[in-house]
């Protein structure tokens, strides 16, 4: 197992590329069957599937070709209407991974988020998450809305949105972030299909990706230690006094970074707003403290 060592030492060198490679090798050697995967976009912005399309090495085609058999997703699937939803229903009687992005909207029995109509009946996001959640081998709450409620449940929570974690009475792996990073999603799934469930922390996040605070590995840490602080956005020093949430947010953003590892919010001279953390956005405000 890769996560037995200190995640700092282990991080980018080994994860998730190495895990992904092994999973694919197993699949190619027929030691493992490609597992079905349902990706429900529930009450959210569909930003996590867009983030998945940003995946590089493995990219989304590699992911769909070699790692999983995605049977249902609103943004990508060729089919539409009832035929599309039938793919969802067919998958329920198989071994499958359920990915949910977006929160579960519970107001008026879920009618504020309808994802399909089947045999004349409206299928709410709530109903679909319940149906698939009961049967899935693994459930991943991808993004901060699915993991913690996130922006969809921001006060006063007009759609009475709940996290998938709170809504389902079963184990849910949280892969938060707003959006989640493509390599956190693919890496977690790679771990599941080759080694089973990854080691999770107390909040059920894979410690591979969520083990250490941003602050602990921040390239601006030396400024903090010397108490040299930025006074406005665009400056190069520590942004702690501008409200940076790096000290309370556990992700590997400083190392993984975003979009082909090219940059990240702190690299763009703006504070971390704690988008991967429980309580985002309400408890993270103000995002910019002037």
């Amino acid at each position: 197992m890769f996560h037995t060592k200190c995640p700092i030492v282990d991080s980018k060198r080994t994860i998730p590329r190495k895990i992904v490679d092994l999973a694919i090798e197993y699949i190619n050697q027929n030691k493992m069957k490609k597992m079905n995967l349902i990706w429900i976009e529930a009450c959210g912005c569909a930003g996590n599937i867009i983030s998945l399309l940003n995946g590089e090495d493995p990219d989304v085609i590699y992911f769909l070709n070699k790692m999983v058999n995605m049977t249902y997703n609103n943004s990508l699937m060729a089919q539409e209407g009832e035929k599309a939803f039938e793919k969802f229903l067919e998958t329920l009687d198989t071994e499958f991974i359920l990915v949910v992005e977006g929160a579960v909207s519970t107001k008026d029995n879920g009618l504020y988020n309808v994802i399909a109509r089947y045999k004349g009946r409206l299928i709410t996001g709530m109903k679909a998450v319940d149906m698939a959640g009961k049967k899935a081998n693994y459930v991943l709450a991808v993004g901060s809305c699915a993991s913690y409620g996130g922006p969809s449940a921001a006060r006063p929570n007009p759609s009475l949105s709940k996290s998938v974690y709170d809504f389902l009475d079963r184990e849910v792996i949280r892969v938060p972030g707003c959006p989640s990073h493509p390599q956190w999603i693919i890496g977690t799934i790679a771990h599941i299909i080759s080694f089973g469930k990854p080691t999770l922390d107390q909040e059920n996040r894979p410690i591979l990706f969520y083990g250490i605070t941003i602050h602990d590995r921040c390239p601006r840490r030396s400024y903090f230690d010397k108490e040299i602080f930025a006074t406005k956005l665009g400056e190069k020093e520590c942004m702690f006094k501008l409200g940076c949430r790096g000290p309370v947010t556990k992700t590997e953003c400083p190392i993984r970074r975003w979009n082909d590892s090219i940059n990240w919010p702190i690299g763009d001279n703006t504070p971390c707003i704690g988008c991967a953390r429980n309580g985002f956005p309400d408890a993270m405000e103000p995002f910019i403290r002037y």
Partner: protein
Amino acid sequence: MGDKIIINPLTRISGFLEIEVNIENHVVVDAKSSGMLFRGFEKMLEGRPPLDAIYFTERICGICSTAHSIASALALENALKVVPNENDSMIRDMIHGCEFLQNHLRHFYQYTFPDYVKGPQINPLYQESYGDYRLPKEINEKLSKHYIESIKYSRKAHKMLAILGGKAPHNHGVFVGGVTVNMDASIFIELKSILASIKDFIKNIMIEDVYIISKYYSDYFHNGKGYGNFMSYGVFDNYYNAPFIYVKPAILINNQRYPFDENKISENIYNAWYKGDKVDILPEEGYVEPDIHKENAYSFIKAPRYNGYPMEVGPLARVWISGDYTRGVSTMDRTIARALEAEKICNTIENLLIKIRLDPTKQEKYPIPDQAYGIGLKGTTRGALGHWLFIENKKIKRYTIITPTTWNVSPTDSNGIKGVVEKALMGTYIQDIKNPVEIGRIVRSFDPCVSCATHITSDKYDHVRIRVV
């Protein structure tokens, strides 16, 4: 007795849309479009710190979050009386341009292609059971490879966005006063290099692909027309965009050009699930409570109207207003316009890269006034996006957002005037009622984003034969 066809989910869009049409003798005689998602962002924004609106409103939409950051920053700058300097404005235009490229590539290849091209044999991108695929085998194979290849380029467009904006989706770099990135030579050359590869793909592959599709599906030049009334809030139209100034704010009604006047915008809630003591609501009047039990209503998308007219917004509207394209108004023209616009945006960014200086950002600390009002209007990937902001006691008092998809996918208003997509579906000839491919193709040509338009529907069907597909 006619047939009623309901498509839900209308996949390959952002968010959830139900389309319902009544058909008599193969012709659509009535059409309804219903948004299926409501989150209430306008309500959530009340009481929040004004500067947080930029990052907060981005979360409305995963595919066009940058659009919201730009409209929100503009509304705040209007309220706070901040004017970004020229260099920072140019960089912000580049960030916005990167989103256009990402969005147009993904809409064309990932969302539109599967309607016309048999996809790569990868689940769930591919389906066997669909009828009307017309491309010869070799051509289909070539285009199917482009589906896969395109993913690299839309990813690179987001990479450019992240170089300037920190990350994508949901960037951090667009802020009041401009941007937060400090330009340097390595950023400059990296952008130039990535842009060259994206431009090469769009110019030599995407444009050809769209014309190949239009050749084999030429009947789609004859449906999906809508009203042909167009609106633009203006985009890439600053003096520094010369000689590639794109499109100014303007209105085109019955081919007559009018100056744009923001005071002519109102939202009609007659058929939308909202409570109100009147049917026409002005943007500055703010949030209205949803009411799922309202009779006759069938969508939580409100019906914005300009001087009473439903207006089409988006790439086709822009190229008509700018005069770049006047071939026609149809499903296929809309799809071609989007591809042509993608090429145009490459030139826009290229031009900005020539003009940009390697200056540090001019960010300031922005004091929040006790009271202020600001409007941010901008042409974005899907069309005209507006943010209206009221500040009171240094907090957001009211916030109104009218998105492009609200314009395009609105319900019928209290005067009986249909929304643009509804109108575009009317009169459509449906070849095979069991397999009504025409509907999805027409609706997708508008690139609807229901995540942005935030709505809901009900469950009342008690007449005619219902055929759910």
